[in-house]
């Protein structure tokens, strides 16, 4: 039972290798006139076979390690905020989304000094605006709201 995490990893790697190997049969055919030596599919297939062999080796020699500890609520919350950043950015734009993210994640991780949290978030976003927008002339996504009200 102790070796189960590595065996699961080996199974996942083997699944990736088999799926990638199978996908090579969906590549377009190379016209015979252009076909010379190793084609487009042979090298990825070779890598998939190596990967499969390594997965078998891992399954046969798993390290005796404990399963990783459960992800705490703060961990899931962080992942949720990271994933939610994209849709939020599409609505409010990149800089406001960053501000919301900085405050929300800091709060989630236990920062309760409101002034420090807000001040550091505003300071960082202002710094990013100064360096990337003003200095490097990078155009950041304005989001649905930005497009609606500022363009």
């Amino acid at each position, binding site marked *: 039972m102790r070796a189960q*995490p*590595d065996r699961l*990893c080996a199974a996942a*790697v083997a699944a990736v290798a088999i799926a*990638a190997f199978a996908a*090579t049969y969906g*590549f377009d055919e*190379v016209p015979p006139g*252009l*076909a*010379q*030596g*190793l084609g*487009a*599919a042979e*090298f*990825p297939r070779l*890598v*998939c076979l*190596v*990967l499969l062999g*390594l*997965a078998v*080796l*891992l399954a046969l*020699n798993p*390290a005796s*390690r404990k399963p*990783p500890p459960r*992800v*705490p609520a*703060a*961990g899931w*919350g*962080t*992942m949720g905020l*990271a*994933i939610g*950043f*994209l849709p939020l950015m599409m609505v409010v734009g*990149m800089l406001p989304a*960053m501000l919301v*993210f*900085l405050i929300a*994640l*800091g709060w989630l*991780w*236990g*920062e309760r000094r409101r002034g*420090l*949290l807000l001040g*550091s*978030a505003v300071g*960082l*976003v202002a710094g990013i605006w100064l360096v*990337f927008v003003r200095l490097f002339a*990078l*155009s*950041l*996504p304005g989001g649905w709201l930005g497009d609606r009200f500022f363009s």
Partner: protein
Amino acid sequence: MDAFLAGMATLTDPLILGMILAGTVLGIVVGALPGISGSTTIALLLPLTIGVSPIAALAFMGSVYCAANFGGSITAILVNAPGDPSSSATAIEGYRLAERGQAGLALGMSAVASAIGGIFSVVMLIFAAPLLARAAYSFGPPEYFALAVFGLSMCAAIGGDGRVKNLITAALGVLLATVGIDLTSGVERYSFGIMELSDGINFVPVLIGLFAVSEMLDQSTRRAEEPKLISMDAAKLPTGADFRKCGRAIGIGSVIGAFIGALPALGATTAALVGYNETQRWSKHKHEFGHGALEGVAGPEAANNAAVGGSMVPTLALGIPGSATTAIILAGLIVQGVRPGPHLFNEQPVLLYAVFASMLAANLLYLVLGLGMAKLFARISLIPPTLLWPAVFVLSVIGAYGPNQSMGDVVIMLVAGGVGFLFRRHGFSPAPLIMGLVLGGMLEEALKQSMIIFDQNPLGFAHRPIALLLLAVTLSGLLGPLLLRMLRVVRPQKEAV
């Protein structure tokens, strides 16, 4: 000689000097921050270097790389929390010295040993890299294929839980490198009709995701302890007696670090650990180890900084990364349109000597900054993680978006971050994936060209001595530990009979 002087002359350019100063200060700062390594910083700031010349970009990245190893020793000594993995060996003796009230001496020795190790390795780089490049000038596709295979096989020793896991991540990196249009046939591979994947997977978002975002996710699962700064005096320059005591340790560390660094894939962390062990083995004061031995600071610090110059040797001379950080620097150079390898020494010698000069300058600069401002840098480790890690994510987003101004790259960064987080939880190191991604293209191209040269007969490798030697070394390196384990199993059985 002209190229050497021209390279040195770049140090008079205010922009280059500014990049070296910024890189050194930033390197010490991030090195001192537990969790943020030099490789993470270079990955994060890679987009900033795209807008400047290759010389300025390399000067900046090289300075961060040099200074981060030293920065890591500050918190290793004062907080017992190595800011950079390469400083973990320093913490063993350095923190004991700090507890005994000798933090200033430990920091001073760390700065001096780091600078000596770093300068030794840059001098070695100046002499060894052109020699290696000249030797590699006659290399053809079979030799490059064998070299890339050798480099990838060295990933087995990078870190994480085991050799097989490292090789798996390296192979996954090579597989990722095949995504996009195959340049010889024009066939699209693994792009699944997504336009952003047709040109292949960009290095930058993958690097940022794997190193910065995954580290943030990993930190979110641990409750970080509030770091406590031990009271200290200002860093002290070691006395003549200290030097006499630690001279051997610095010498051993410098030579070991430069050698280990020059081996593909092995970097500063391995060098520091081996440096610590060898320093202890050859020390006349073995009894001091474990109780705060100054030699135990000098040896690993000289080793981890010597590994920096050492790891640049295969990176610049052969195009094979000497460590995870140099894999990122290599990716940065490729993004800049510069392909390191033996031809670079003929085509752009000034660029190379400018890199050597900037690394020398960075080593001298962090010696001055380290001795003068160690106490201030140590305070950086007190930045609360509740403010630090959200900022890292925000900088990751801008770093991934910036180079191509593409939302697709932000998505790739997030996916890479999730994959990197899974890797870390299950004992896989993300560094070999970068090695695979960087070397994958070269590996495939060299194999295809070799097979054309050999008329599709793989036995053709047997007629190329250098390629054959490299493949034999690779095979023995991979199978050696397995055979040793089998021997260990068989022997006790025989004895029992």
